[in-house]
């Protein structure tokens, strides 16, 4: 079951493409933590990828951290292997941590279903927004920037104007 709004962020400690391990505790001092289920092979992720980089770039000075997690079954989807993740992060200039959930336990703890799928946590690590990055995988057709609106609201001490939207994308590939 997907993590409900108001829930506390489940802990994790996962290897990142930078060669280090990254845990939820590592981000404990950031005012807003964006966790996005992601992967390499999905065309929806690829269509939104540049916007993920832009989000991290645009909100870095406000202390926002974006973390992408790949929980896909790499036996059936080798394009999502850890080595392929490292390659993609280099090629696409990822400016956020990209973590590998090899045993899928973190994906299951969050109840992730799609890639990309956003879980936004406030300073207390309470889930305040869940769903899509914005309302279209085609950037030119975007009319609602859900995640940016939620981050702006958090920075202003408000609640996100929309707390939940349907994530649109590929399914997480469970074993």
């Amino acid at each position: 079951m997907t993590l409900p709004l108001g829930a506390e962020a489940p802990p994790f400690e996962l290897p990142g493409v930078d060669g280090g391990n990254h845990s939820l505790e590592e981000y404990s001092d950031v005012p807003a933590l964006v966790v996005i289920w992601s992967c390499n092979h999905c065309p929806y992720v690829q269509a939104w990828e540049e916007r993920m980089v832009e989000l991290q770039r645009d909100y870095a000075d406000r202390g926002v951290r974006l973390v992408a997690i790949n929980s896909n079954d790499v036996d059936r989807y080798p394009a999502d292997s850890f080595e392929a993740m490292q390659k993609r992060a280099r090629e696409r200039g990822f400016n956020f941590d990209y973590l590998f959930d090899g045993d899928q336990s973190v994906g299951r703890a969050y109840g992730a279903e799609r890639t990309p799928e956003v879980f936004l946590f406030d300073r207390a690590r309470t889930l305040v927004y869940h769903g899509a990055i914005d309302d279209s995988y085609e950037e030119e057709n975007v009319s609602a920037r859900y995640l940016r609106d939620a981050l702006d609201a958090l920075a202003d001490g408000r609640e996100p104007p929309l707390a939940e939207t349907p994530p649109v994308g590929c399914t997480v590939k469970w074993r």
Partner: protein
Amino acid sequence: MRIEFLYWESCPSHQDARALLDDVLAERGIEATVDVREVRTDADAESLGFPGSPTIRIDGRDVDAAGASATPTLTCRVYRRPDGRVSPLPSREQIEAALP
């Protein structure tokens, strides 16, 4: 004319792709039966040479020849636009170009 529309239910792009296909056919005044087939298993994907969802073939020719040779599997298919952007469904121009 034989038009095949193959899709995997878990990939949400098939509905938009089917609507786009129907729109292009209507615009061109083509009255053809679309052979719609749901691909459910890896074995199906293998036997059908299904490189991802959705896949559209017109008289046996994939509307995106470049992506047709991808390893058959149950996945959302990556389509590349002329400007390099990625999309989960073919462009109107790709479908139009594949029609006689």
